């Protein structure tokens, strides 16, 4: 399956949206309607949660009642386990939107004497379906049958019959299965579920754990083929990032102010493009956070929301510091137009950080996102994996018309034009701030390294941070000497 198929390909397959953030995007609309989907993964990777959220979202967003068939956990355990994700299963059960059927099977308690069928399972399922008019079902996990009963040939025959029956009933099913050693599932359930197979993974690298999801197979439809990190938090499942399947986002010509008059002038007189990606590189103390804050203040002046991801300073500290250069972020903050997300970069891996940021973007729906600085995230170097993750974040912002401003801390003595080269090709506008030595004084200088699609100044201007605000002053070219 390749993802070069144009998005306009007519859809032959009816899909059932999962309502789970990100999964509908990577499956281009959801799971195959009226058919089973296999979710395979090792223990603790989130199979049960995925299956449960599929039903909860179905019930709450699409008015599709669902039956959860649990072979392992009791209904009480399930209710408690997902309460932390904000799912009130008891409420859904009372409203007839969810039915939990607990199937208990213990080999040691059962003697097998002669021929039998699993009609009891079918009858119970049918009864549960009829009770609430189920459109969705989750089976978690059928493999218990293999450990609970001896007759494997019979189980296989009955599974085949079960999946045929589920298709006849037209319910959209999620079937979970344990990952096998070298195989997709331990008992080969993929043999019966041929339409859609999703694999969940849970990896620990450098003591940081990352969950990943991948669509291994989706018959008859296009789908994203990458591994996508995902997050399980208080809002449930979030698959990140929502990679664009192509570079097909709308490109606007609208310009927005940078918050600094002199900078607007340098950028063709009208500031950044709305929905573009901006990188500000510079050594410590060159005014990156100040420029970011000015942009946030400008967004507030336009009545737009900003998400400010701060890795080095607390919100209170940023507000206090930029007040000294005439930028007042307080009103934006108190009116909840400016949202801070301040975390220590070491708290989690890069993927998790980016997942959390995307998650916040989806909830806050800001027009402007600032990440100050991205260097905190990429301390291990800008390798291809990191680059891929940033590409996805940038794509995500572009798709949603969000202007993304990134700052990058350059190391003294190193040329930022060289060190930030990895991320710079992904951005539309790249600004450099650095120290200038002029007439025995140390000053800040700003210049535009690139700015796609606009006429921009090639000057180096003096960046002045004063109590009156930020200004950019033209420097007579004769007196210029760079230092880094």
């Amino acid at each position: 399956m390749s993802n070069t198929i144009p998005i306009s390909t007519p859809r032959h397959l009816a899909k059932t949206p999962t309502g789970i953030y990100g999964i509908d995007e990577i499956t281009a609309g959801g799971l195959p309607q009226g058919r089973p989907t296999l979710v395979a993964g090792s223990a603790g990777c989130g199979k049960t949660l995925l299956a449960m959220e599929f039903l909860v979202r179905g019930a709450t967003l699409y008015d599709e009642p669902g039956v959860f068939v649990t072979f392992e956990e009791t209904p009480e355990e399930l209710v408690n386990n997902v309460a932390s994700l904000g799912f009130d299963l008891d409420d859904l059960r009372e409203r007839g939107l969810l039915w939990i059927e607990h199937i208990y099977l213990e080999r040691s308690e059962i003697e097998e004497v002669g021929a039998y069928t699993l009609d009891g399972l079918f009858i119970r399922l049918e009864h549960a379906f009829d009770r609430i008019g189920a459109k969705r079902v989750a089976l978690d996990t059928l493999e218990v049958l293999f450990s609970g009963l001896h007759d494997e040939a019979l189980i296989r025959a009955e599974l085949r019959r079960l999946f045929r029956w589920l298709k006849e009933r037209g319910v959209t099913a999620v079937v979970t299965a344990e990952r096998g050693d070298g195989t997709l599932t331990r008992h080969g359930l993929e043999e019966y579920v041929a339409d859609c197979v999703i694999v969940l993974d849970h990896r620990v690298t450098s003591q940081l754990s990352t969950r990943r999801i991948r669509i291994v197979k989706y018959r008859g439809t296009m789908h994203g083929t990458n591994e996508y990190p995902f997050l399980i938090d208080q809002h449930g499942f979030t698959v990140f990032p929502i990679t664009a399947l192509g570079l097909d986002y709308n490109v606007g010509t609208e310009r927005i102010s940078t918050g600094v008059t002199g900078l607007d002038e340098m950028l063709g007189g009208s500031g950044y493009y709305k929905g573009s990606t901006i990188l500000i590189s510079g050594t410590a103390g060159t005014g990156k956070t100040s420029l970011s804050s000015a942009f946030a203040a400008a967004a507030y002046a336009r009545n737009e929301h900003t998400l400010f991801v701060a890795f080095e300073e607390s919100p209170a500290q940023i507000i206090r510091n930029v007040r000294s250069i005439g930028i007042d972020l307080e009103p934006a903050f108190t009116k909840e137009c400016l949202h801070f997300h301040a975390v220590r970069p070491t708290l989690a891996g890069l993927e998790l950080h980016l997942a959390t940021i995307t998650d916040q973007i989806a909830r806050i729906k800001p027009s402007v996102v600032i990440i100050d600085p991205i260097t905190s995230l990429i301390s291990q170097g800008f390798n291809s994996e990191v680059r891929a993750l940033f590409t996805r974040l940038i794509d995500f912002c572009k798709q949603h018309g969000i202007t993304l401003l990134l700052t990058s801390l350059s190391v003294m003595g190193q040329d930022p034009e060289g060190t930030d080269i990895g991320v710079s090709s992904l951005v539309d506008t790249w600004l450099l701030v650095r120290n200038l030595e002029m007439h025995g004084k140390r000053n800040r200088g700003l210049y535009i390294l690139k700015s796609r699609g606009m006429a921009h100044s090639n000057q180096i201007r003096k960046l002045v941070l004063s109590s009156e605000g930020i200004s950019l002053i033209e420097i007579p070219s004769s007196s210029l000497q760079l230092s880094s």
Partner: protein
Amino acid sequence: MSEQNVSKQLPDLPTDQSEFWILRLYVAGHAMRSLTAIANLQAICEEHLPDKHHIEVIDVIDDPERASTDQILALPTLIRALPPPVRKIIGDLSNTERVLVGLEIAQHSH
């Protein structure tokens, strides 16, 4: 499992309850396999538990609720409700020897 439900249908209980057998057979409709299981169970009980057993046949197609509450998955399923502990046997009970072992019925040596 509700014991009261069953005891209502019971004939006079003998004084020594440990000697009395209550067996529930869960079947699905009147399929061949159901009928075979019923016939097999009756024959075994007549021979090995004369006058001290009670068989209740439950058709889970008529009473699917019962299949859930009693955790029935395979059919036919035989449950020994008395004497304790509860025992579960699945299948058409075609192998008398193994049914006797499964139910822990002492076999008379001939």
